[in-house]
């Protein structure tokens, strides 16, 4: 496990790619194209029983529920996303 290789740090604003055919398939559809904030940095995790090879660094990204669903609650959804799905959010994005 290594967190030093991770590109983003806690608090960074990110956007999830809309489409990423070669990316890890475990990025749920409901966060694609959405804006979130890095909540946890896990680094590279080995999980040999689960999958072959080594995935990119993993983050838990915090999304406001209102960004994802037509819901007025001020709650949050925290989703695990691998690095290749993320890009840095700018003020305009």
């Amino acid at each position, binding site marked *: *496990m290594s967190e030093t290789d991770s590109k983003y740090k806690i608090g960074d604003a990110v956007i999830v790619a809309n489409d990423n055919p070669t990316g890890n*398939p*475990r990025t*749920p559809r*409901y966060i694609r194209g959405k804006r979130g904030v890095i909540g*946890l940095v*896990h680094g590279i*995790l080995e*999980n*040999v*029983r*689960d*999958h*072959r090879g080594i*995935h990119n660094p*993993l983050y*838990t990204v915090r999304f406001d*529920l209102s960004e*994802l*669903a037509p*819901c007025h*609650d*001020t*709650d*949050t*959804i*925290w*989703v*695990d996303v691998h690095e290749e799905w993320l890009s840095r959010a700018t003020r305009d994005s």
Partner: protein
Amino acid sequence: MSGKHGHKPFEGHMHDYLAHVRAVEEDLEYYRAKRFEPRIFYLLRRNVVTFYDLLKVGSTLRKKDHFFKIAKPQGKNIEARVRHLEEWLDEYVKGIALVSARTVEGMDMVTEDNRKERGDYDDFFKIKKKEHQGTLDERMVNLQQDLTDYTELLEVFVQALIRRGWATREELAQRWQQLHDERPWAGGVIVAKAWTDPEFKRALLDTGREALREMGVHQGKVGKLVVVENTEQTHNVVVCTLCSCYPYDILGDTPWWYKHESYRANIVQNPRACIKDMFQLEIPSDKELRVWDSTSDVRYFVLPQRPAGTEGMPEQELAKLVTVDSLIGAGYALEPSQLREREAAHVEPEMPRLRPD
């Protein structure tokens, strides 16, 4: 069992036969459609076994050579029959573990292969689950028939693996024995220690698995563990929207509703309404609700709040207040009065099965 938090329809108690039967139905379909049959397809595609192997075995197998021996019910009353269905389901689940990749030589299969095969990422591959209807009695009769059919396919599959030389009967018998060595459930013990030992709690929240290792709790290798704490300000709830990732190596068998499509969809669409509808739990409006959608690489569980009126209670007693629901965020830990009500009604304490690696 009505307490402050009301009736919980998704929690199995032996005085609620329908809840038990529903749990068996849902789990049986889950294990058939998500674990066993996708595995058969995967192996058929790779010529590990063929349809023809299965046919040949099916037509020549004698009862005395059966690998799986299903016990008879211990009585004719409804409780004995429900228990029998539950035990039978459990044998079926163990049987699927018996033929899983890690135990059969030559089957190089990881969990991710099965997720693709069963349609977690593509609905096209999904195997349709059966729907259940009728009176309680009709549903039990149907379950009996399904279990008979499903076990027969499993039996034929095991025998075909042996005939094809992927495993010997002795190896499988030895593994079968190991699969029956269950470990005691530790969910309650972990939480009770965190409630009484601030240093341990800190370590658990900071390091997850490492704190458990130091405590002597046995665990497997299913990814990183993150424990999230419920407080006066925050209520946490866990889901896996893509499949059903869960720290089963620590918390034991996953409740059926956690794997169910309705929970997995609704909890991220409208979490408060979902928790209220499914668990009769109303999260106070001044609390932030955090939903944790887990991948296979990180497994989450919730550290529930310590209930009021438990000051000075020994750890052993505190552990009894911890329910499976409370570790997922679908409930609170029991208050001492609720525990007493359950004990007075002879409700079985929850002890999910913790299977060997």
